């Protein structure tokens, strides 16, 4: 079953990308949100 390496590898690559992108977006959002007063955040 040497395919297992490739299969698990595909899942790891995909979810790693997802986690990286998600973390970067949230962190960037958090950093900005501190500087912007609440009444200017249209989503609150």
């Amino acid at each position, binding site marked *: 079953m040497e395919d297992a390496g490739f299969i698990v590898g595909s899942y790891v*690559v995909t979810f790693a*990308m997802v986690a990286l992108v*998600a973390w970067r977006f*949230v962190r960037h959002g958090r950093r*900005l949100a501190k500087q912007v007063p*609440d009444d200017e*955040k249209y989503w609150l």
Partner: protein
Amino acid sequence: MTMIDQDPLPPRASTSGTTATRATRLLGLATIMSMAWLVAFGLGFSPADRDQEEAVRILYVHVPTIWIAYLAFVVTALGSAIYLFGRNHSLGFDRLAGASAEIGVAFVAATLVVGSLWGRLTWGVFWRWDARLTTTALLFVSYIGYVAVRRLGGSHHQRARRSAVIGLLAVLEIPLVHWSVRLWRSLHQEATVLDPGGDIDMDGLMLFSLFVGVVSFTLLYVWLLMHRTRSMAMEDLLDEQGLDVALEARRAEASGR
């Protein structure tokens, strides 16, 4: 001379230090749960495929990634078109297009990597000059160009207009590239037994796993889009506020003379 001592921006509270709201938290939770299901079904419960045995499990992740990559670029094109041809040129759609393109680029990268892994198993080779794969690779480069164009500077509306045009041109390019590569590959008639994509007939548990994959990735895409557009809105806001601060400073400089 009171202008100078007063803090130029009235200090207003910024309690919620994140772009999250109840909605995104709920959505995030749903995404994580459906992904857990995907992994469980994709790797565990679903049976092996007759032809490619275990390799089919990669598709439960690979197909949703391709689906989101192309969805992201369609949203970018739509956002660009609405900004360009819409009546009030609202920057919201420009930001939507930009955020979607950034997400799209990340997913195309994953598509190419996972695609070559899957190719290694099924065709025995990491890269094949297949029409779909080649088009995806060129798309990857075009949208890196799009993201680069967004950072060229100038006012927000200049950025929006320029990016919208490039976004629409990139869409115009997809059919041309796909047609030329398909015509080119048809010269080399080796049969493509298995196309990366749903051309394989799946049923029962396998189809369900694929369905869970598409659903979970779509939820993920919407979640990412909401967070990113909110951050970009704040970026533009801070630019704008930077402008107010600079305006105040210039006016102070003028009256202070």
